[in-house]
């Protein structure tokens, strides 16, 4: 369910969340193995969480609260609960994003350029929530070496897109070499420009898994802007009816 978290968090904008299975000597494993461990760590059947998104930009701070449900790698539903956005929902199934708004008579299916729009003015785009395949299906991974991030030894891994179906053609991941969680991610454009940075600030362990519960995304194309995601409560392995991720139920 790491990816479920990933989706849970991704839904809010995170690309990776990781928990650690074991620690291995540095350089004893390849980049692919590190990524595999990262992803194995993420496989949960279901997850339910509540949290908040704190957006800071030049105009001040804005807090949005949400609930989310995730099943497997490719199904995520987020429902916003803060006053301004109450009742709004984002449903992600496979590679499709659907938006539900209580005052709109139709469900909006996002596609094309609209996927690059920001989610509720945050530093995360809808596009960041797509791409449910495993990282190794979409990217070629190369281990660049090790670096210390926040005092922790990390594997520095470069991901290069195999095709066009990903939001970022190149990413650099710093994966904690002991607990196999992502500590930092840089996302680049085709022209090698740093587009976004994600920093994981806090982790939590549950049922033998370790996953991020507080992380910050910065859209480098925006000035003085950052979005902090905080997972305040999370349950994994809970019963979620599969109809929850259907378009019919979205409008209920």
């Amino acid at each position, binding site marked *: 369910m790491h990816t479920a978290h990933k989706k849970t968090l991704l839904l809010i904008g995170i690309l990776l969340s990781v928990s650690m299975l074991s620690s291995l000597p540095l350089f004893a494993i390849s980049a692919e193995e590190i990524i595999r461990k990262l992803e194995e760590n993420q496989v949960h059947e279901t997850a339910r969480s509540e949290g908040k998104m704190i*957006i800071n*930009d*030049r*105009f001040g701070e*804005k807090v*949005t609260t949400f609930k989310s449900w995730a099943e497997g790698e490719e199904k995520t539903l987020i429902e916003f609960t803060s006053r*301004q*956005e109450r009742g*709004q929902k984002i449903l992600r199934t496979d590679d499709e994003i659907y*938006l539900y*708004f209580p*005052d*709109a*008579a*139709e469900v*909006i*299916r996002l*596609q*094309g*350029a*609209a996927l690059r*729009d920001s*989610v*509720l*003015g945050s530093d995360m785009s809808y596009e960041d929530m797509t791409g449910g395949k495993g990282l190794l299906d979409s990217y070629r991974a190369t281990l660049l070496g090790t670096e210390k991030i926040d005092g922790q030894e990390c594997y520095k891994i470069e991901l290069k897109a195999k095709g066009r179906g990903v939001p970022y053609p190149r990413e650099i991941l710093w994966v904690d070499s002991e607990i196999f969680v992502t500590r930092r991610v840089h996302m680049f454009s085709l022209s090698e420009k740093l587009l976004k940075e994600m920093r994981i600030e806090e982790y939590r362990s549950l049922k033998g898994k370790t996953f991020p519960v507080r992380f910050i995304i910065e859209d480098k194309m925006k000035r003085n802007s950052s979005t902090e995601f905080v997972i305040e409560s999370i349950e994994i392995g809970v019963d979620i009816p599969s109809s929850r991720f259907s378009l019919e139920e979205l409008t209920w």
Partner: protein
Amino acid sequence: MKLRKIAWRNIRRNTRRSILSMSAVAIAAMAFVFLFSMIEGMKQDVAYNLQTFVTGEVRIRHSEFEKYKHLNPLHLGVDNYTALAERLESMEAVRTISPRIKFPTAIYKEGSTYRAQGQGVDFEREAEYQGLEEYVVKGRMPRNGQNEVLVATGLAKEMNLDIGDNFTLLTQTRGRGMNAITFKITGLSHYQFDGLNNSFFQAPLDRVQYFLRMDNSVSEILIKLKENYSAEEFAAGLNSSLTDWGRPQLEARMWKDISQTYSFVVMADAIYFIIALMFFLLGSTVIINTMMMTIFERRKEIGTINAMGMTGPEIVRLFFLEAFFIAAIGSFVGVLAGIGITYPTSIYGLNFSAAMEGVDMEVSQILRPVLNFKSTLFVFLYSTFIASVASFIPSRKSAKIKPVEALRAI
């Protein structure tokens, strides 16, 4: 008196040549009476469009709104606008006001996305402020309090929409979140300038406030003044009043300070004066040529009158008067012809819709020239002056002819 008679007689000696010289000045004068009328018409047209649809005569906005305009800063609005509207409407100089919310949006229809510019307006006020009913070409105006919308014909055509259709729009709210709402189309609008005919729609202000989470705020208030009130003075006074009313964050600006379009038209006006100068100089070359030929032809005559006692300056004045009469008559005829062309076109207008298609300026597709007494008088005096002055060069030459040399040809 005698010189004038001689000059006039000389003009009539070769009528065809004189008419040709006059025609050159007349054509230039005619063209510029018409062009200056077009510019005047365009100035009035742009002023009306700006004041009615874009800026008002005076516009009130949050002073920081312009700085962050590209970010759609709805939170930098005019809060508690109803209280401010009441104060404004009680002011002697104010004729009518229009509170509005402008917002960019994405419209979704059957899986396709269209970008558009929305405007929340109070339809009851707009009936008076912009005479909105005049621009509703199909259906009816939306009603306040209803999820109804008036869509520009260009947008309706692009999206294949018609009366009774729904569309859902998605946009950023005041709190920088997102929201979507579905509106029903009750009317199609077509304005006189293209900027409002494409990707534009208007919805009831109260519904727009609701879905943008604006509470009792608007993004701007436009003000139209009664006649004889200066927008500049009113804006200056209003800025002091806004501070006194505890709203120092708001700013009132007059329309000429806001829009660049009017500045462009004013600039075009100035450029036309320079172009006019060139045209009149060009027209004057015909007069100069005629005068030079006349002087050459009349060398013997000049020699004779010089020998009879006419002084050099008198001879210069004679030829200058000839040129002046030609220029004055040519200008007068040209101005009359210009008025003759301008008058009917000012009634029926000139259709520039093909040329103006897609031009995002507040210039109407059908332009009506407006005859301006000052510019018409200016064209007459200007063309007469330029042509007369230009003829001074050959006239001076006539004075240099020596009687002995001139008479030797006899």
